[in-house]
C-alpha cells in the first residue's frame, strides 16, 4: 500500500482536498473538496468546503466546515462551525463550537460555548459554560456546571446533574467579574429548558415547563411548571413547582 503524503498549507493556501497522512493548516487556508487525514491541525483561519474525515482534529482560531465532520477525537479552541452533521467520538471544546445539523458523540466535554441548531446525542455530556441546543439533548449522563444562560429545548437522559453552586473558585471568579465587568447579578446563571426527562434528575437554577422522571430533586432557585414523578420528589424551599403529579 502506498504511503500517504502530508499536506501543509501556510500563509495563503488552497487545496483541493484528498487523502493525506497529516494535514497542517496555518494562516488562511481553504480546502475545496472532501479531505481525509490521520490528523488535521488548523490554526488561523481554515475553511473546508466539503467533508472532513479524520482520526484527530485540532483547531485553533477560526475553522469552518461546510460538509460533514467525522472524527474520533476533536479538540477545538477558538471558533468552529460545522454546517452539516458532525460525528465525533470524543469532543473537547475549549472555545466556541457551533453545530448546524447536530452532533453525535460518545463523550462531550465543553468548557466554552457549545451551540447546536438540532439534536445532540452523547453517552456522557459534560459542560461548564454556555450550552445552547435548539433541539433534543439525548445522553446517558449529563453534567452541567455553571451554565451562564444556557438553553436546551429538550433533555432526555438516564441521569442529569445541573449544579450552579459558586464555591469556592467559581465564587471568586464571579466576585472578580462583578468587580471588573460591572455585573451585579451574580446569580445570573440559569438553565432554561422546555422539558427534562430522566430516570434520575438533579437540577439547580433551572427554569422548565415540565420535568419528568423516577427520582427527582429540584435544588435551589428553580422554577418549574409541572413535575411528574414515579418514585421520589424533593423540592428546595427556594424553588417553585406549580404543579406536581405522582404517577
Amino acid at each position, binding site marked *: 500500500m502506498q504511503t500517504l503524503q502530508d499536506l501543509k498549507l501556510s500563509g495563503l493556501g488552497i487545496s483541493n482536498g484528498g487523502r493525506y497522512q497529516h494535514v497542517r493548516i496555518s494562516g488562511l487556508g481553504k480546502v475545496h473538496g472532501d479531505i481525509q487525514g490521520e490528523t488535521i491541525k488548523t490554526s488561523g483561519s481554515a475553511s473546508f468546503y466539503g467533508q472532513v474525515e479524520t482520526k484527530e482534529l485540532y483547531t485553533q482560531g477560526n475553522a469552518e466546515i461546510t460538509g460533514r465532520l467525522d472524527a474520533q477525537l476533536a479538540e477545538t479552541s477558538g471558533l468552529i462551525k460545522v454546517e452539516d452533521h458532525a460525528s465525533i467520538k470524543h469532543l473537547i471544546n475549549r472555545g466556541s463550537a457551533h453545530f448546524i445539523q447536530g452532533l453525535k458523540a460518545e463523550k462531550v466535554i465543553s468548557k466554552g460555548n457549545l451551540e447546536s441548531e438540532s439534536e445532540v446525542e452523547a*453517552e456522557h455530556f459534560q459542560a461548564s459554560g454556555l450550552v445552547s441546543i435548539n433541539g433534543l439533548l439525548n445522553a446517558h449522563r449529563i453534567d452541567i456546571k455553571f451554565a451562564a444562560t444556557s438553553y436546551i429545548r429538550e433533555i*432526555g*437522559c*438516564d441521569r442529569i446533574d445541573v449544579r450552579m453552586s459558586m464555591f469556592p473558585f467559581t465564587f471568586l471568579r464571579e466576585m472578580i467579574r462583578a468587580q471588573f465587568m460591572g455585573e451585579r447579578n451574580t446569580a445570573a446563571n440559569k438553565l432554561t429548558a422546555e422539558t427534562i426527562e430522566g*430516570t434520575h434528575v438533579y437540577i439547580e437554577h433551572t427554569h422548565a415547563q*415540565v420535568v419528568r422522571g*423516577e427520582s427527582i430533586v429540584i435544588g435551589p432557585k428553580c422554577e418549574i411548571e409541572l413535575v411528574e414523578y414515579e418514585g421520589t420528589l424533593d423540592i428546595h424551599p427556594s424553588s417553585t413547582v406549580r404543579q406536581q403529579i405522582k404517577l
Partner: protein
Amino acid sequence: MKAEQDLISKKELLAITGISYGQLYRWKRQNLIPDAWFIKQSSFTGQETYFPRDKMLERINKIIELKDQYSLEDLAQMLSPELNNKTFTLSDIEAMPILDATVTRTFVDYLSKERFSFLEVLFIHLLGKAKAEYDWSGEQLEAIVMTVRDWLPKLNHSLYRLVICQKGTEFFALLVQQDADYHLDHLAKKLKVYDLESCAKELHPIGSEV
C-alpha cells in the same frame, strides 16, 4: 389510503412496558427506535411525544425480549438496519441468494461503487421482486435503476412504499412515505405496492424472526 394512526403517549408507554426514560432515550440513540416514530403533538404543557401504538409496543417488547441475548449494536442492525453504517461488498451481495443477479449487475454498473449500504441492497431486492413479476426488459430495468440512484441520497430510513404503476404500456415507479396519501392520474393503474420496511425484514434472517 391514510389510516388514522392509533397513538400512545410516552407516559403511557413507560407505564405499560415498565421501561425508564434512560432506557427509552438510550434505545433512541442506538437507533433501535426510528426517529420518525417520535411524533410531537402540542398539549397544555407545550409539546408531548406520542408513538404509533402497535408498532412501538411490539418494538419495545422485542427489545426487552432480546436485549440479554444480543448487544444493542446487533439489535440495531436487526431492527433498523437502514440506519446503521454497515456496508456490503460486491461479493457479500452476490452471495445473497434472494437477490436477482441481473438487477445486481445493473445496479453495480449504474452506481459504480464497491460498497453498498443496506438501503441500496434493499432496492436491489425490491427491484428483483418487481422484475420477476412484470418481466421487465433490460431497458426498463435500467430506467428504474437510474431513478433509484437519484432517490437514494435523499433517503435515510425505510419508512416508504414503492408503488409500481402502469400507464398504457409504460411502467413507472412512485416512492411515497409510509403513511402518506397519493392519487394517480385516471389513466394510470397501480400494479403493486411494496412496503420497504417489510421487505427489509426479508433481507435479514434474524430480523424476520423477531
